[in-house]
């Protein structure tokens, strides 16, 4: 702990690991630089396992992990640096603070080998940065969840790790604390010059905090790249779904800009070209435009279709409507589209009789090869 981690522009983490056990194979390869990388995936996709492997907690691993030019793990060369020497900081979902130690003792834990004056200086600095000053002598059990997670973050950062791994750091907090803490983490990450990986199943968190995204599905990387790219043009159905897209239909190509949506019983014009003969089309719930246009005036060449309401769930500000195109149905699970709209729009729509009209904007249609 005595040596400072050297941070330059060249800081990077290279991961190429594999682990298999009955029913699951993790096979992940990626590189991370200074920009925070978000790892998105459903539960069981291997997100936490990837972080634990980097921290040195996963046995029976194969592959190679290099952080800042230091080989942390190389199964072929028989290198396995123990967790305590990896300079990898891990922040847990449930904080993992030492309940028998005060806030000050918790944060100082990673600096035991430093001389007291230097230790006190660094701890005080980090506590101030995370607005924890004044809580020095409190025990973790006396703090709110948000405070506990800030203590955990301070404890993790104070030894200046070369990589910071955040494993669902906000998911144990309630909404209000969550956004507060997220802001502070955002600030902290901006000031931090090492590699950051953030695991979450919450796509908005990842979107706000990370410039780069890796999408994991069933142990494999199914998409990776700059955040905006991944959200705007997800390369496959899994990624589209994980980035929040709710509506999908199997699709067959008619010509490059016209596909037949098999599950929606219609042909759709798309701005993007379909690259394979079969695939999927998708559209985000808030991109669908519902109007009260009377029947008979729909223009199928503009992707306009009559639709009937199947079910709806009303939130305080937004409403999710479940719609069926072309015909009505009594079966509430037999819908085509899930549409999100503001409450005002919904109230307005309800004053009109069914069918309504739905428009699937060609610009907003996501074309996904299989």
């Amino acid at each position: 702990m005595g040596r400072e981690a050297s941070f330059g522009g060249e800081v990077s983490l290279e991961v190429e690991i594999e682990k298999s056990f009955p029913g699951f194979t993790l096979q992940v390869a990626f590189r991370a630089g200074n920009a925070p990388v978000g790892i998105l995936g459903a539960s069981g996709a291997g997100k936490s396992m990837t972080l634990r492997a980097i921290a040195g907690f996963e046995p029976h691993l194969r592959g190679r992990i290099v952080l800042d030019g230091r080989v942390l793990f190389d199964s072929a060369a028989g290198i396995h640096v123990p967790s305590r020497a990896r300079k990898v900081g891990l922040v847990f979902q449930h904080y993992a603070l030492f309940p028998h130690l005060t806030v000050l003792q918790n944060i100082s834990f990673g600096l035991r080998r430093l001389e007291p004056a230097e230790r006190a200086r660094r701890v005080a600095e980090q506590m101030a940065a995370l607005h924890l000053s004044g809580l020095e002598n409190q025990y973790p059990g006396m703090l709110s969840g948000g405070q506990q997670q800030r203590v955990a973050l301070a404890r993790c950062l104070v030894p200046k790790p070369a990589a910071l791994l955040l494993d669902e750091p906000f998911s144990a907090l309630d909404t209000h604390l969550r956004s507060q803490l997220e802001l502070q983490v955002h600030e902290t990450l901006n000031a931090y010059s090492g590699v950051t990986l953030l695991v979450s199943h919450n796509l908005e968190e990842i979107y706000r905090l990370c410039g780069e995204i890796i999408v994991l599905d069933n142990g494999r990387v199914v998409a990776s790249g700059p955040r905006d790219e991944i959200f705007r043009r997800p390369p496959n159905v899994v990624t589209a779904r994980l980035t929040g897209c709710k509506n999908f239909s199997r699709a067959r190509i008619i010509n490059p800009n016209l596909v037949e949506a098999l599950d929606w019983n219609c042909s759709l014009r798309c701005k993007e070209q379909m690259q394979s003969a079969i695939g999927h089309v998708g559209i985000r719930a808030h991109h669908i435009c519902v109007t009260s246009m009377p029947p008979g005036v729909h223009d199928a060449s503009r992707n306009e279709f009559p639709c009937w309401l199947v079910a709806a769930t009303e939130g305080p500000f937004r409403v999710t409507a479940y719609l069926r195109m072309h015909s009505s149905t009594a079966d509430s699970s037999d819908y085509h589209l899930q549409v999100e709209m503001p409450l005002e729009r919904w109230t307005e729509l309800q004053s009109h009789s069914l069918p309504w009209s739905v428009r699937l904007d060609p610009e907003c249609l996501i074309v996904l090869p299989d």
Partner: protein
Amino acid sequence: MNMDLSPLWISLKTALSATAVTFVLGVLAAGWRSGRSSRLWELFDGLVLLPLVLPPTVVGFVLLSLFGRTGPLGQILWRAGTILVFSWSATVIAATVVAFPLMYLTARGAFEQIDPGLFDAARTLGATEWEILVGVAIPLAWPGILAGVALAFARAMGEFGATLMFAGNIPGRTETMPVAIYFAIAAGDTRQALLWSGIVLVISLGVLAAMDGWTRYQRRYLARGTRGVVRGGSVARG
């Protein structure tokens, strides 16, 4: 009344020594053991827990066979110039062997109650396994460890069968209170037996009271940080 108090001192000395030995060995073994699983460790568990289920006479017989003049360990010791059998050390060994499983089991249970995420956190913060045992595991498992100490002390104090077989009944050297009670009864001296039983009862009650007091104190001590002690860290993938 002129009563030889040596069984009381021998019993206390034996129980205290055996408790001290089981404390160190039991906590170390439990600390090393918790969080690991392998066939070899299961075998180890089976071996050290055996004295808990075996009749003490069998334990005594096994010890006698091991440490007796012709036994494998006894021969080594005899060459080194020591004879263990029927010595005070034998009372300590017998008490240690029967008390160890209680210490080991309670300590292990207490260690396994701790969120393994805390150990992982300590590792990423640069702590060695020894530092984690001393600085995290033992302080957090302390109430459980103390309960183990109390149980081990009580068991060591009450040890009779294995002690009689392995250490014999030499007044002033190996005669502990339980052994003294047995021989008092055998000799028809009910008054003596009653006296010793009363002393054992007082000591046992004292241990229970002390344990209760400690538990209360520990509960207050741990209430400061209860939210973190519960097993919370999910290690599942995903």
